[in-house]
């Protein structure tokens, strides 16, 4: 009978032993092994395309140009002023672009979140559309608009607002404008998603309890939108740190960012060790930043922060 076969035999292990405990433990082990077997293809992928290349990168960074094992590639960062300058520029651009994205993206996401559903989805298409266009194409488009004899300068001169063309491209402002445009959706989308989850009744409750529109926004809407803002800021900031195409094209060679430095080191000077070291430093700094953000948000979440 089936009931008997499931129970194995009641006397197994003798008196005082838990009934079928051993068989149940073995069954649990078998299940774990089966789950591990199911996971193994993805574990292999993670190993092959993440762990191995990063390990290799790290390994490469420890050899100098002569192929000798040394820490020279890292020592260089502290010895050569140009490396420090690149590092500072990279962070400066990342801060400015993130700030610009917040200033432009917050009101945009707020507007989208308040629009009726249909209008919001149409406007969202306009946010996402540039997203689908090549970064290279968009960057060249900005060059056309911003250069010395570009659209903006010729219009402003024709209108008599300025007499000399403004230098909008081939410098820091060009890089910032181009990058802000490209990275804006990365801030708007998570922010919009989190604003949509804010309960309108909470805002109504705020007004009902005596807070005017401004106070309701400041004390209720804004704090509740912060988790979405934080994730948008993290994404934009981290993407800024490794950005290559736009600063390379819009910076006119005056704005050297970390990724451009890497490209120069490997393709111009063929110094793979130094390039790998740059990559390792960028990776470590990015991970450290992510950890810092995580920690800040985590600390908030256990305080009065958490949303439901």
């Amino acid at each position, binding site marked *: 009978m089936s009931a008997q076969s499931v129970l194995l035999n009641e006397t197994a292990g003798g008196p005082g032993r838990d009934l079928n405990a051993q068989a149940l433990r073995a069954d649990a082990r078998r299940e774990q092994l089966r789950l591990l077997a199911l996971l193994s293809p993805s574990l292999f992928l993670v190993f092959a395309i993440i762990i191995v290349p990063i390990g290799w990168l790290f390994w490469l960074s420890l050899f100098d140009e002569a192929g000798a094992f040394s820490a020279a590639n890292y020592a260089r960062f502290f010895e050569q002023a140009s490396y420090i300058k690149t590092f500072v520029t990279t962070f400066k651009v990342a801060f400015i672009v993130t700030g610009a994205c917040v200033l432009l993206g917050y009101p945009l996401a707020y507007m989208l979140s308040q629009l009726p559903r249909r209008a919001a989805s149409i406007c969202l298409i306009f946010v996402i559309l540039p997203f689908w266009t090549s970064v290279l194409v968009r960057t060249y488009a900005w060059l056309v608009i911003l250069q010395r004899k570009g659209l903006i300068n010729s219009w402003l001169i024709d209108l008599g607002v300025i007499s000399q063309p403004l230098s909008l491209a081939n410098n820091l402002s060009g890089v910032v404008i181009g990058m802000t445009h490209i990275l804006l959706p990365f801030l708007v989308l998570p922010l919009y998603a989190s604003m949509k989850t804010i309960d309108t009744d909470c805002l109504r409750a705020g007004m009902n309890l005596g807070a005017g529109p401004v106070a309701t926004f400041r004390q209720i809407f804004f704090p*509740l939108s912060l988790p979405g803002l934080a994730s948008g800021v993290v994404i934009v900031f981290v993407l800024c740190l490794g950005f290559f195409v736009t600063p390379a094209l819009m910076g006119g060679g005056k704005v050297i960012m970390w990724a451009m430095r890497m490209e120069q080191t490997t393709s111009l000077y063929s110094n793979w060790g130094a390039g790998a070291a740059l990559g390792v430093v960028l990776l470590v700094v990015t991970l450290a930043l992510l950890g810092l953000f995580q920690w800040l948000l985590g600390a908030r979440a256990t305080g009065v922060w958490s949303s439901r």
Partner: protein
Amino acid sequence: MILSIAPSALPIGMRRIEKRFGSVSVLRDLNLDVEAGEFLTLLGPSGSGKTTLLMILAGFVRANAGSIRVGDDEIITTPPHKRNIGMVFQNYALFPHMNVFHNIAFPLKQRGVAAAETAERVEKALDLVKLQGLGERRVDQLSGGQRQRVALARAIVFEPRIVLMDEPLSALDKGLREHMQIELRALHRRLGMTTVYVTHDQREAITMSDRIAVMNGGRIEQLDKPETLYATPRTRFVAGFIGESNFIPVECRNGSVWYEDRRIHTAAPAPASGLHLMVVRPEKLRLLANAEPQSGVNVLDATLSDIIYQGDSFVCYAALRDGRQLTLRDYCRSDVLARMPAPGQPISLGLDAQDTILVAAER
């Protein structure tokens, strides 16, 4: 003293309120007076306009026309944050980024109340809703019933003259809901604020209210005390919505009422003529021992179809001669049980003249 009986509870007067959403008319020429300190319930099915009316009172929805007076002040164009009306939302709408204390202190903060007084008043409000010592809890650490209480404390801590409640108990399970009904009622008696309560649950409305406004299709069908509403519904809708009812068509001729060939006695003067419906409450019907006519009792002949035993009570389903189904409910007393007929047997049902209600047949 803070949070004592509000001496300043104010009456609300709503006049000719109109609200349309596009071409759909939600409220039509609605007039309603709420007395100072009264617990008034707006009762109706979904789409009857009760929530819209509450939203107009709170200031979240703009009416197309009409007037709302609170005391002597016209507030129809006053923005919500200046209305000084407390509100308990259906889903509580507690601020998730603030703990219990800050949620309740919120309206006091907006009014510039000093920190020490705020702490004292929040403490008293927590006491009042029996949440002593939970001020530091996060909102997501509270149970549904506790959230409900926080929402209530937040709506009354600033001593508003009017409190609105939008189906505040609908998210609670049955036992807790019944318990909170009694507590809300007691709290209202103690604080005496004018309260407008919205629900679609007729039992809840009857349990809690001083008066009930039954709403249907954007109008108030009847506004009365719960007992009046139950005993003398004025329309078929009210009779059907509040309590259970059997409807029997009757005809009025020359001031007397007829069901088939039988004259029906009513306590109220009978309408002159036309088709009407007799409203028969299941618990007002009695099983008669014999079919002898008695004065002041209407007798209906029927056939028993089924008996459902429910422990403390039983329900009889009977068919009148014209096939119309009737429901009778009575308590399981031994004398009734002793002479209980069997299904299929003919029975006589008695209905006292004073329990015989007529409503117009239309609709």
